[in-house]
């Protein structure tokens, strides 16, 4: 495999100062007996694409939800562009508005039109004027190929279209990083590629991304690194070519053989 082609500027990314996302020894318990995250540490540099994979229930969703404080955690620290997430003084709504998030089930707001879905937070959180928010929304809808759907409601769109709208909605906030939680898992197979195409393009344009997915083709194509989780711990955190070339842990090997045999 040609390393230079898969990670075009990873050397530059590794050395570019403050990471966009930095996690240090993050642990989380749902109950005193049930630990869901076990001292997870990793960092994502500007422009880096990191794929997170692992068996169901291994804590992937919980991990990325900690990044924008959707989930609290009891130990460790997370920084977003140097701002501490787990600090009472941090303005969480403001911090969250700088991180885009895309969910497995789209989570568009069903009572709002596609246009309104894209402008709601721009106006309420970023305090943009109507014209500016509308213009931004139109530009992004065009980018995900859905300009003609602006006046429709989410319930009138296919799953693939809804997920592309959800990506556009997150991008409308001009985020410094995007988090994806299994963005294609709820889609019919024929719609997976339209969403992945948008994500690949985003990655190629230099967006910083943390993507929970089992789409190993996507990982190979654009990921700089792959994180493998099991039982709440980060078992591997290695460059993509190393992960697919020779996963070090047995658990990752087993996981890969299961995933790739489908």
């Amino acid at each position, binding site marked *: 495999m040609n390393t230079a082609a898969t990670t075009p500027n990873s050397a530059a990314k590794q050395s570019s100062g403050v990471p966009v996302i930095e996690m240090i020894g993050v642990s989380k318990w749902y109950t005193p007996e049930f630990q869901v995250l076990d001292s997870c540490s990793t960092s994502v540099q500007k422009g880096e694409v990191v794929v997170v994979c692992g068996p169901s229930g291994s804590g992937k969703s919980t991990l990325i*939800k900690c990044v*924008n404080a*959707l989930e609290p955690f009891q130990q460790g620290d997370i920084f977003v562009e140097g701002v501490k997430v787990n600090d009472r003084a941090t303005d969480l*709504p*403001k911090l*969250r*508005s*700088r*991180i*885009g*998030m895309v*969910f*497995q*089930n789209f*989570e*568009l*707001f*069903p*009572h709002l039109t596609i246009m309104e879905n894209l402008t*709601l*937070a721009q106006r*309420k*959180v*970023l305090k943009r004027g109507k014209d500016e928010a509308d213009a931004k929304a139109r530009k992004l809808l065009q980018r995900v190929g859905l300009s003609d759907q602006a006046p*429709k*409601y*989410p*319930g*009138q*769109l296919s799953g693939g279209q809804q997920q592309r709208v959800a990506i556009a*909605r*997150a991008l409308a*906030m001009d985020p410094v990083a995007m988090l994806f939680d299994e963005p294609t898992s709820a889609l019919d197979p024929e719609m997976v590629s339209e969403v992945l195409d948008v994500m690949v393009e985003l990655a190629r344009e230099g967006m910083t991304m943390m993507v929970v997915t089992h789409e190993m083709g996507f990982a190979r194509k654009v990921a700089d690194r792959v994180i493998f989780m099991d039982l709440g711990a980060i078992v591997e955190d290695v460059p993509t070519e190393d992960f697919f070339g020779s996963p070090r842990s047995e658990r990752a090997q087993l996981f890969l053989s299961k995933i790739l045999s489908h």
Partner: protein
Amino acid sequence: MDKVVDWFSIFWQESAEGTGTYAYTLLLGLQLTLEISVIAAVVAFVMGSIVGVCRTLPSPLARRLSGGYVEFFRNIPLLVQLFLWYFVLPELLPRDIGMWLKQVPYSNFYTAAFGLGLFTSARVAVQLSAAITSMPRGQKLAATALGLTTRQSYTSVLLPMAYRIVFPPLTSELLNLIKNSSVALTIGVAELTQSARNMDSYTFQTFQAFTAATLIYLALNILVTMVMRRIEHGVAVPGMLVAK
């Protein structure tokens, strides 16, 4: 034909109270029923919304207070609640305030309206919080992830859908509220049912008096049902299922 005219003639007789015909007595009763219902509905909606939202907040204090509110207003018979507000509360308050309360004009009317509103608000709160909890957890997460505050998440995302979900049960709460407004007669409000009783006791035309009241309640509730259905369809979200 004469029989029919005879049957109806009682409504055009001057009432013994000397304020007009018996038909007019019934209409005055209807007016009071409507006024009580409107005030009570507004109270029920506002308080029910606040308490219903509190039941879904993460704060344990908000949950405990709203839980207590619901248990209090839901588990005591409406009639007992009215007597509590009307007869017991003034005695419990400091003497001066109690005396003043008893002299407020139309205090029985306002007690009935607010008492009925508070009683119904507990039921509205339960319905609304159930609707909010029934929505996918991801809706709140998505709103939060976009940077919306809790208040903004509720006003812009959760409540607009929750009210749509809760609309059919709210319609039946409103119908119940109108029917329940008849308990106001126990504290001396001459609403529709009481007007029919008055007519009955002066004329002994029991059948006419209560048939008239029955038909008025029926017409009123059918009208309310139709209006509510109109609104329900007007706010229906395109692309989502609504009962026809």
